[in-house]
């Protein structure tokens, strides 16, 4: 499989701080690759090194198999969709889309034909003469993508282009972006701090933290098999329980917190009895019951008092405190509406299968 982008041991330092730290990645042709990380993790620096706005201190970026060392941004087969899109307000939509072609010295008639065809493909036929400020947020995004894709780049970089949109439009544009990518088949490298964008859109996601990749994998791998506590905590909602490993039994560890909560979870990496550990349990793997006898058989059982109900349609959850330790636990409510009548203060039973919780040794990733 041809790799459109290969980043090889790239480092960028600002003073003593390494914004990007000896990082490598490769992105296959035609795929949608996301870099997910909190703000300040170095993802923008990485993207700007790929685009050529920043030169790496060490390492090399290869695009379409060619080293980009010393190649200026305007000579790279890469185009970028900026965070606030950066459409040229002094130009019409047609001039925006035709800008790159005109810079390449294409003939006027050819530019007109290609701009027309491109605007049709992104669903804005005949919008050439509109001003940029006459467009809606979604239309602007399509113009920004059209402006880049009309140059047929090997790679399209997207710098959180949905960040400035409101929630409803963002959901809509997510779907549209995915369809555009599938339609054009161009390799997309997308950076975001929004895990839902990364999970929905991508073929592969790299989770970035402090200048390094924590894990690179499919969205499913990141969600169901996180390899580090950071990934477990960052991707999707999770209950984090920190404590000590009191017993390790093959692939299962029993963890006890200082507050007196004991639970069993699946071991990730190496854990020995006595290690400081942290376990992650997703809200949706925990079963809830008013009668403890109704919990599924292999589950470990707890009881707790309802603290508050967090109604959010299909994402509704309940926050409760475990009876013995008063640890706060978030549990997703079933969508059948079965527990919609829970009241704060009510005591309920909950439990989960130990194989669906995951436990890491803490100090291994303390840095």
């Amino acid at each position, binding site marked *: 499989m041809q790799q459109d982008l290969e980043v090889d041991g790239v480092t960028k330092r600002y003073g003593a701080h390494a914004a990007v730290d000896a990082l490598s990645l490769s992105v296959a042709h035609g795929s949608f690759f996301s870099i997910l990380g909190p703000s300040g993790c170095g993802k923008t620096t990485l993207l700007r090194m790929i*685009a050529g*706005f920043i030169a790496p201190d060490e390492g090399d970026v290869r695009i379409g198999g060619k080293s980009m060392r010393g190649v200026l*941004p*305007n000579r790279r087969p*890469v*185009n*970028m969709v*900026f*965070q*606030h899109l*950066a459409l*040229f*307000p*002094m*130009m019409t939509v047609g001039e925006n889309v035709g*800008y*790159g072609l005109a*810079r*390449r010295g294409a003939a006027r008639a050819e530019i007109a034909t290609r701009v027309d065809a491109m605007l049709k493909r992104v669903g804005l036929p005949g919008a050439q003469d509109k001003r940029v400020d006459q467009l809606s947020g979604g239309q602007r995004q399509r113009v920004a993508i059209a*402006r*880049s894709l009309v*140059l047929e780049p090997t790679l399209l970089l997207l710098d959180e282009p949905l960040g400035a949109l409101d929630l409803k439009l963002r959901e809509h544009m997510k779907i549209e972006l995915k369809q555009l990518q599938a339609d054009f088949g161009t390799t997309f490298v997308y950076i975001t701090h929004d895990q839902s964008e990364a999970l929905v859109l991508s073929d592969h996601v790299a989770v970035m933290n402090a200048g390094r990749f924590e894990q690179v994998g499919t969205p499913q791998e990141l969600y169901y098999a996180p390899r580090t506590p950071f990934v477990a905590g960052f991707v999707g909602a999770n209950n984090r329980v920190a404590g000590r490993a009191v017993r390790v039994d093959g692939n299962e560890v029993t963890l006890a917190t200082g507050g007196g909560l004991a639970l069993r979870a699946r071991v990730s990496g190496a854990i020995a009895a006595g290690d400081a550990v942290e376990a992650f349990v997703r809200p949706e793997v925990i079963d809830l019951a008013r009668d403890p006898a109704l919990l599924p058989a292999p589950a470990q059982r707890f009881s707790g008092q309802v603290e508050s109900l967090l109604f959010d349609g299909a994402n509704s959850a309940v926050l409760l405190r475990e009876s013995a330790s008063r640890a706060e636990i978030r549990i997703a409510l079933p969508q059948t509406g079965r527990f919609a009548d829970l009241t704060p203060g009510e005591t309920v039973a909950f439990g989960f299968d130990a194989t669906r919780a995951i436990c890491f040794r803490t100090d291994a990733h303390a840095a």
Partner: protein
Amino acid sequence: MLPERSGALAAPRGRLALLLLLAPALVWLAGLIVIPHIELATLSLRARIAPRMYEPSLAQYRTFFEEPLYWHTFVRTAAMSILATACTLLIAFPAAWYIAKIARGRSKATLFFLCLIPFWVSEAVRTLGWMILLRESGVLPRALVALGVTATPVEMLYHDATILVGLVYTSLLFMVVPLVSALESLDDSLVEAAYDLGGNGPSILRQIVIPHAAPGIAAGCIVVFMLTLGNYLTPTLLGGKNSLWFTEQIYTQFITRFNWEQGAAFGFLLLLLSTAIVGLGLALTGQKLGDVMRRA
């Protein structure tokens, strides 16, 4: 203002307050601009036929067109002012770009302050400073002799170039300020996007930066042009007898010749000239005065 007061009661009070607030500006406008100009207009449209006897006439304006010195000076003043404005723009643009886009924090404030420093002293003293530097026995000619560049001291005053230098120096701040504010509002990512899409320095300047900064450029040019055209001190002191600046003609008519009618006509012609050139400049660059003034 009490918010619960009904609109009908509050409106006359609000209008009164507004009027009071505007009063100083209105007095200023009426007293110093409108009334003198009405007086000037009537003055310029009459001719003296005998002591204390006047009749309405266009004689003053006829004199202007019939006497070549007058309209030559007029055209020369306009051309020199346009040239001075263009030079000021060329010098101020890189400085403004540096202040707006490259300098950060403290150095930005310092650079701005450096532009302001010449205005600490009066225009007369500033111009005299140029004279000390440039006159035949001044600092620069003597330095050139000492360095062996010229055999004898060269008189550097009283040339058109000297007048231009003085005018540009005096005007620089008024160009830098609107340019900085225009360039600061330019989103850096627009420049990066253009670069990313294949643009290069000159094409980005022409297609992105200048169109964005156009209202600021126009505002700076209007201010500098008006200041230059109406400047009296700098051309007179640096240009001496040869300066032939139109404001000098006006001064001469009013003060030396005591011909107020002729002076008033010249004043009006200068007003028409500046209005016409600014209007032409705006029309040629496709700007609207409203947009430009909001930027200024």
